[in-house]
């Protein structure tokens, strides 16, 4: 029960926080109405500037594979939360949530990513939920 409350709080935090912290570029590229929750296999983790990106192969019911390109914030924010380069690697299976791109839907803004079999989202730091700094 307590855990459920925590989860609820986390989700609420994400939704409440996002509009407050919108920053450069989000609204022009991503659509809050295209929220997705998918499972896939990581193909690449790009520790790049200005923003990190995680690429995930998602296979649909018909067996068609789409490689999602998920934008995050600057790598500096994640290293400050204690995330290390080996914490997420190609080949790992993940659940993720994202806002899809306005035009190219499979280019998403990553909201949370969790390894399959684990409950704690990656690089969420002290915060229960995760809102990419690029939303700020």
């Amino acid at each position, binding site marked *: 029960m307590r855990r459920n409350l925590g989860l609820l709080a986390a989700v609420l935090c994400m939704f409440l926080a996002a509009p407050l912290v919108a920053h*450069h570029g989000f609204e022009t590229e991503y659509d809050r109405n295209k929220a997705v929750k998918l499972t896939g296999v990581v193909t690449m983790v790009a520790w790049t500037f200005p923003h990190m990106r995680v690429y995930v192969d998602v296979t649909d019911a018909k067996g068609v594979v789409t490689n999602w390109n998920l934008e995050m914030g600057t790598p500096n924010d994640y290293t400050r939360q204690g995330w290390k380069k080996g914490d997420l690697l190609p080949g790992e299976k993940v659940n993720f949530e994202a806002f899809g*791109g306005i035009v190219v839907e499979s280019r*998403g803004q990553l909201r949370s990513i969790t390894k399959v079999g684990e409950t704690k989202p990656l690089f969420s730091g002290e915060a229960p939920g*995760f809102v990419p700094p690029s939303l700020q």
Partner: protein
Amino acid sequence: MKRVLVMSTLLAGLIALPVVYAQEAVAPSGGYSIGFGGTRISAKDAARPAPRLPDGKPDLSGPWVRGGVNNDFETDAGMKPGELATYLQPWAKKLMDSRKAQDEPYTACLPMAPPPAVHPYPWRIVQSYTWRGMTHIFIIHENGDSGAHRQIFMDGRKHPAPEELLPTWFGHSIGRWEGDTLVVDTIGYNGKNWYDQKGMPYTDQLHTIERYTRPNYGTMVDNVTIEDPGAFTRPINLKLTATHVRPDIELSEFICLENNQYGIAGGFRPGTGIGNEPLK
């Protein structure tokens, strides 16, 4: 006597340092305070006295976060809705209204804004000594491509004559001390980027006067006046506050052009948004 002063200052610093490091940083409230360079300094550390340099001048180092107005000038400056428009000449208001967020120069890896820009990443003041004393101050921003570095001449020189001055993104800055306040006077801006992501314009007639004070360890106050007879109706006075970051945080690098994919998900090719020419 001077040596004793220097030694005791250094000693005091060495004693104070582990205390600052030992303090646990304040946990972020809500789920989104992980940006802005990480969590902030603890309230207890923030309340400590502002440190001084061996020569007695205030130590303004930081690193700091925030203390600017770049997201939405009107909101960040604490103005009422519609108030900013009263500061803008009609052409400037019209230009601002015509701008699209996707063309913001910053998103094309160009400098974010003239001071006082807010930087979501840490920034640091470097008080630089030569044999003649504190001759330069540099303000360095983590997102260097967007914020670059600012150079402030502290050696008593004046601004060049207007005909000698080539306008630049961060202008020509000269600084002086008024007691414990660092006053930075800057002209020679090029007027090319936007003051905020809403598209607030300014021109090459911009003149900024920043007054930095550090009332305690964790706080930097910037009382800033920005005036631009080319775009504003009257000077704008702001009081802005920056916060010291957690003591273990240092500036990192930020190479914006490495992998900037801005625009593709939205199906547009971003413009550079450069230029503040009045609309005909």
